């Protein structure tokens, strides 16, 4: 009886280990994919390669888990399947700001903040291997077609929102083919 079950149980344990690891590996992709769907539908009918300029997070408006209520977030779901995507970020004088590029696995491919650019604009070209970026851009090579470019701007006072909002809307996220 016991011998009859020994091999099936060992097989079950092996499958359990694979299922455990597979679930852990899949979780970031699944949650990132859900976030990309949510962001791109908020940015305009599921379109990719365009910045969405979200309002500040409140208890009634939380587009993503653990939002900071002190930051103004702008996000772009990018898709490199048709070619490189260019991210041009307009600097906001005197404020902490950054743009970060997350791939489909949630890894950070690049971050540029006002500290890195010395207050100048950040210009990133997101490419897959083999794609050629236009001149004048920092090249960021990704292992996945899709991901999220996220811009953060810190407000020390909510009254600064209107001024900062006007500046951030000069930032763009667009496919090279759309330029």
């Amino acid at each position, binding site marked *: 009886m016991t011998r*009859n*079950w020994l*091999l*099936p*149980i060992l*097989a*079950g*344990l*092996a*499958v*359990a*280990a*694979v*299922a*455990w*690891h*597979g*679930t*852990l*590996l899949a*979780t*970031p992709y699944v*949650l*990132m994919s859900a*976030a990309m769907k949510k962001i791109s539908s908020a940015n305009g009918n599921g379109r990719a390669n365009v910045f969405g300029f979200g309002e500040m*997070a*409140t*208890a*009634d408006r*939380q587009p*993503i*888990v*653990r*939002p*900071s*209520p*002190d930051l103004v977030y702008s996000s772009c779901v990018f898709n490199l399947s048709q070619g490189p995507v260019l991210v041009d970020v307009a600097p906001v004088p005197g404020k*902490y700001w*950054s743009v*970060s590029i*997350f791939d489909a*696995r*949630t*890894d*950070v491919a690049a*971050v540029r*903040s006002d*500290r890195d650019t010395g207050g100048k604009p950040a210009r990133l070209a997101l490419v897959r291997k083999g794609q050629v970026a236009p001149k004048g851009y920092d090249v960021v090579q990704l292992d996945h077609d899709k991901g*999220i470019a*996220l811009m953060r701007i*810190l407000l*020390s006072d909510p009254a600064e929102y209107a001024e900062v909002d006007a500046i951030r809307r000069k930032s763009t996220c667009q496919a090279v083919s759309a330029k």
Partner: protein
Amino acid sequence: MKPWLRYSICILLGLAGGAAYAVHQVRSGDLGRQVTNGPWSTNTDNGTADASALSRARVSLFGLLALPAKEAMYFNAHNDSDGAPLSGNCTYIVSGGELEARWWSITLYEGEGWLVKNEANRWSVGGNAPERDAQGNWSFTVSPERAEGLWLPTGQAPKFDLTLRAYHPKGALLNDPANAKLPTIKKERCA
């Protein structure tokens, strides 16, 4: 029982059990506990290829799109400085000194990381908000009822956690977060 049936049962149980254990492990964690310092814990490999599968899965659930440590550090506290879980019907004093970062804030969340409805519409305290004494020390109150001075409301949340964000951290905060000077969370009383 036929052998194929025995295999089928064990493989199905293995599939379900393995996946369920992974979900449990991810959900029962928080942003990460690679480094602890008093009530605070943090990860040092957020967003990097070095992060383990479990760490990456937890961050994607509790803090998707978190920045890497050089840019920002996220310290999370589920307990007060005496080790008791943070409770929404208790009053706490959070106090500290200057932090080695360009800017910091402390935000109150419930569940996986959601801002809590409250009458003051306040969800965080920015580093520029608390008044400093002559030594540069500051404090504020976390409580369900309106408090004197700077107040961070717990709203109706039965349990909550605090996230300390430190942007452009430097010195010990970045290089030795286990021993950096971080704020304390002291319980005053409970309703």
